[in-house]
């Protein structure tokens, strides 16, 4: 990893994937949280 460009390519690539997965996992988390409200 000799250049800032290489570093940024590496880190931002991972960041996109991680952020995307977190975003998607928000839906089951929210459904888990509000299950009781939906049961009523």
């Amino acid at each position, binding site marked *: 990893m000799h250049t*800032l460009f290489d*570093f940024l390519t590496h880190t931002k690539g991972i960041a996109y994937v991680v*952020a995307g997965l*977190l975003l998607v996992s928000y839906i089951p988390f929210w459904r888990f949280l509000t299950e009781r409200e939906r049961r009523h």
Partner: protein
Amino acid sequence: MTVTRRGFIGGALGAAAAAATADAGTVKHFEGYPGRYGLLHDTTLCVGCRSCEAACKEVNGLPPVTEPLDDPTVFDSIRRSTDTSLTVVNRYVEGGDDHGAVYRKLQCMHCNEPCCATVCPCHAFEKTPEGPVLYHAELCMGCRYCVMACPYYALAYEYDNPLTPKVMRCTMCYDRIKEGKLPGCAEACPMGAITFGRREDLIRVARERIRKFPDRYIDHIFGEHEFGGTSWLVLSGVPFRELGLDEGLTTEPLPAIATSYLGVVPLVITIYPGLLLGMYAFSKRHEAVAAAEREEAVTKALAEADEATQQKLAAAADRAAKDKQRAIDAAVKKALADAEKGGES
């Protein structure tokens, strides 16, 4: 040796500071590939013969120079590189009685941290370990963000090409230097205005020249640090601004500037869902509370109305009863009076 209180605290702080700088995990500095090549362009030696232009065209298989090499009128305007001319020489200062004309060769600067590479959405640029920045046309979709971004106006595009247009720029003759040859321009220059070598060596050479001839050169090597540094270093006898180079440029690498905002993206993705679901829940709760309050007000109003009605009914019944009683009393009184009257006659 006694340890004074001040000495102890000072020592502790010093140790903490040393530890902080030693653990530079979050503050990064990149030196680039060691031993990479570069070129030194000494504009005090350039005479504007444009042999480099002709050589570049030949080496890259491009159409030959359109303006003849001995035609001085070509310098009447400032030119830039195009899709068929990867490098041009401009005259920035006209020759006078006491000074010669000043020329500079323009081409891709092969930056240490290329912004063309940073802004390309297809990762079509590559900073090689040897130094040159390469463009891979097979990955390019032709958005021309690189052309837009380059602060040295070094990239051109094949607008005439309807289906396979490419970005055109100096390649530092990558194939030639891999074979151990000189780039076409460096080989062709008869004045030694272009020197090819390892970048770190060229910086030393440049410093040495400045030191030896302080009256000849401006004390600055352009490209050493500008926007993170370039592979193409320039020496000049006139202020760089006159050569079309802005020496007041920040040393912060353009990729850092260009991508600084992108750090917000993961934050938006991760914070917004919680924030917005919270607002949604809040607005739903607001509605529910407002509905509940409305209901309560209606019930209360009904109850109050009920009570008022009851009271009214009671009062009316009371009045009716009183009226009836009065009527009865009056009738009784009358009857008694009548009876009394009848008794007398």
